């Protein structure tokens, strides 16, 4: 029997009737058309399906949609401004050549959003650990780390900028 779940999705209150066996990954892709959330390993090992739930990174393949009641969910589609302009972190990923095939990118961007939102400076080693839930077969991670480091640095600098 279908269950009706309500949650906040990319800032909007949404309602959906789901089979309780549905994973959040399935719901976001198939019901809401949010294909930035990738179907990678489906067992929580690659991070391609990562979304932010109440600001916390989660593998949506291992998360039942029925658990999302009243949660705030963020996918990469929710980062763009209304006029389509990319967010800072997205622009930096592109500028730092941190994107090749792009399959791991949405998940990594959301983990980066979480890291930046925490507002703490991090060493490169700490950043390595913080993105360790993501597998990338293309880039070798160095440019990804460059992008996250730069985005974090610029975000922290903005916070301390005198008016």
């Amino acid at each position, binding site marked *: 029997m279908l269950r009706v779940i309500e949650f906040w999705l990319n800032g909007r209150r949404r309602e959906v009737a789901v*089979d*309780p*066996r*549905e*994973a959040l990954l*399935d719901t976001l892709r198939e019901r809401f058309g949010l294909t930035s959330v990738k179907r990678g390993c*489906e*067992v*929580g*090992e690659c*991070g391609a399906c*990562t979304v932010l739930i109440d600001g*916390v*990174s*989660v*593998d949506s393949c*291992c*998360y*039942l949609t*029925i*658990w999302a009641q009243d949660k705030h969910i963020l996918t990469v589609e929710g980062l763009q401004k209304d006029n389509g302009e990319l967010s800072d972190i997205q622009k930096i990923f592109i500028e730092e050549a941190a994107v090749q095939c792009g399959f791991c990118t949405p998940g990594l961007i959301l*983990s980066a959003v979480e890291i930046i939102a925490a507002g703490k400076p991090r060493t490169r080693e700490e950043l390595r*650990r*913080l*993105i*360790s*839930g*993501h*597998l990338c077969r293309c880039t070798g991670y160095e440019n990804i780390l460059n992008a996250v480091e730069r985005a974090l640095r610029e975000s922290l600098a903005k916070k301390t900028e005198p008016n």
Partner: protein
Amino acid sequence: MYDFADIYQAESELDAVRALHEDRQAMVIAGGTDVLVGIRAGRYPSARLVSVHGLEALTGVQMTADGGLRIGPCTTFSALESDPLIARHLPFLAQAAGHVGGPQIRNMGTVGGNLANGATSADTAPALLCCNAVLELTSWQGVRRVPLRDFYTGPGQTVRAQDELLTAIAISPADCNGLAGCSLKYGRRAAMEIATLNCAALLRREGDQIAELRLAFGVAAPTPVRCPEAEALAAGAAWSSALAEQLAQAALRETRPRNSWRASADFRRRLIAELTRRAVTAAWQQTEEGM
């Protein structure tokens, strides 16, 4: 879509216990990082689930009136890693929790699930064994308390009955004060790995001696184990690297690692010796730094 037969979201601890009692086929799901993966692998055909996901009463770390700690089984690895009480009293448990998987897994996976799963590779098991943790198991019939040391009966098997819910992990005041510890995990990767071997050492220092040592391993035997022979050797012994070597040899005598696709028994034996030396040395170093 996951292939399970039914899922009931419990509204309270009591409600979960009732649901498990009324459906003798039902199994518990908390964070889902083990159970959902198992369902996808076909390990639980027609599974009927009782979900304790999100139950506040089972989540979090509290200090009890006598100064001990009570850990809710639905506490995630992330929460354990950053909990102020754990940081203060059992930092080596926070260290162990931080070894599990990666950030996303730690945000959902629970310490209760880590134990109830019964896996010898559970990353928090060696540390909790060193803490002499006691598990509170609740059923419709009542509550019983089982030391973690007596919890495991074989690979993936525990004394927990189908209708029992793990409702607390209790640590007594003597086991979470005045002790220095270290948790280590060896895997081919630095993250997203099941342990090839894991280890925890916890000790109390008096002067230049180890007053008491607790040493535990995972993946060194069919279940997580303590090393009583090594511990007896360490009791009252003056610290030296020679002692660390003796402890490593004792640990080897008390463990029984196997060949698996991850590593050979021979490699695991080398790890047991090396991790003993490193864990005990690191724990001792902490006492030098005044913790």
